[in-house]
């Protein structure tokens, strides 16, 4: 049984609020770059960038971070930590304020790998993390700066994020395993 916990309207609203919070926290959009973590983080990153463009009339660079297949139904220990690479990024992150965007924040291992990938590209001024859903169960000391919705979940549950760009709709669903 899947239950929709964030509908399309709520997802739009969360991204809108995160956009405003990014402006509040960074005192504007100077030196900002946005990196979306594949797959769905990329689309969320683009939506945030398009909102910033609408509001501030400034094009904020957006890039993709590739993360190796990392499914929570596969044995983590056997698979090792996720690997992230930033080979599709055609701008420098050195001295920039990087906003990492992902759909779900869970163990924190993807984010750690993403941070390493960003660091390998250059030395950013800062890295912030924006996520649509924070579901808890961190295994690393990582927290998000911008959270769409906190969904305290059991580890047996699955959180499924759909985005209209590649899925049939915008929604966050929770499924009992």
């Amino acid at each position, binding site marked *: 049984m899947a239950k929709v916990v964030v509908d399309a309207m709520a997802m*739009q609203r*969360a991204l*809108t*609020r995160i956009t*405003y919070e990014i402006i*509040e926290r960074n005192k*504007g959009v100077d030196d900002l770059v946005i990196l979306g973590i594949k797959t769905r983080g990329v689309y969320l990153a683009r939506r945030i960038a398009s*909102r910033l463009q*609408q509001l501030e009339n400034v094009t904020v660079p957006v890039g993709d971070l590739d993360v190796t297949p990392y499914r929570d139904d596969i044995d983590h220990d056997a698979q090792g930590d996720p690997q992230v690479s930033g080979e599709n990024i055609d701008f420098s992150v050195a001295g920039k304020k990087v906003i990492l965007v992902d759909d779900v924040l869970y163990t924190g291992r993807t984010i750690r790998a993403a941070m390493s990938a960003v660091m390998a590209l250059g030395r950013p001024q800062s890295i912030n993390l924006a996520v649509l859903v924070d579901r808890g169960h961190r295994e690393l000391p990582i927290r998000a700066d911008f959270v769409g919705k906190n969904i305290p979940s059991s580890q047996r549950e699955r959180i499924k994020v759909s985005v209209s760009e590649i899925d049939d709709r915008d929604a966050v669903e929770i499924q009992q395993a």
Partner: protein
Amino acid sequence: MAKRYLILEDGSAYAGEGFGAGATTSGEVISNLNLLGYQETITDQIYHNQIIIFSQPAIGNVGINHDSYESILPTAKGMVVRDVTNISTNRLSRLSLDEFLQQHNIPGISGIDTRHLIRKLRKMAGPVKGSIVDVADAHAFDQLNATVLTNRQVDQVATPKPYPNPDTGKNVVVIDFGLKHGILRQLSERRCNVTVLPWTASAQDVLNLDPDGVLLSTGPGSPLDLGEGVLEMIRAVQAEIPLFAIGLGHELFALANGAKLEALPVEYHGSSHPIRRIITNDIIYATQGQGYAVVAKSIDRNRLITTYVDLINGTVQGLRHRDFPAFSVQFFADGAPGPHESRDLFDEFMEAMTAREG
């Protein structure tokens, strides 16, 4: 029904038939272009001391119901309509419009070519005074010309004392400038535990209640008449607590953050203007009622972001503070009456409160 007259300060007189109360009243004459929602309109305190001309030709169709009051004691001075109709078979109808106006001693006049009148008013500069009278003689015009329009509307209609509207959710302080019930209704639907404070409340009065959020309400009259105290309160509160402001509250929020206001040549009351939500570049409609607008050029871009704009007259319809979760809209986001698509802003307000808790 008795023959009565609407007279204007330019010396013109319009014959019609009286309905509602038989009182003789004077006030500023304004036009309302909404197709729906005469009950919400006549009970909204932004129309305090005003005579409302309705462009919609048939008014009264669905009577008066329990769910559409925007105040307990309406203080509009009159209704001017083309046809007053009493054809309601609506199951929610409790009273006819005529009976309702009699109860509240508000006169109405029907049989007026309101669309012609509204076009004429558009060409007249500034506030226009008018009266609904039995006899349109020299005495009536003398009385009308001697009428002085008050600028103390907020004092007249806003609560002088705090009161609660308890529930179990977020603690919200509503600053009352003459609020419409739609605001309280939207907060109730979201289970907010509301305390309504008089508009003279200080920042400390607000902070003492330890609110999760603060809402500045709609209200009548000019924001420029309310003084510096309320602006200081807004500046102090917005830095501490998520803030949402509507209508008059939006105008005050703009003033408090350094923007300037201008009086519109003609007040706009309607819901037919497309409004652009800038962040997502989509269009919404909402009920609007404004005599003032924020001067776009006066907005300090280092303090405020423009978030909504009216695509017909270009007026600023929404603002947001750059440094704090504080935002405002000129239009009536409670959707009473009419288009409901901006009620989402109350959800945004809820989210701003939740996000602050972390």
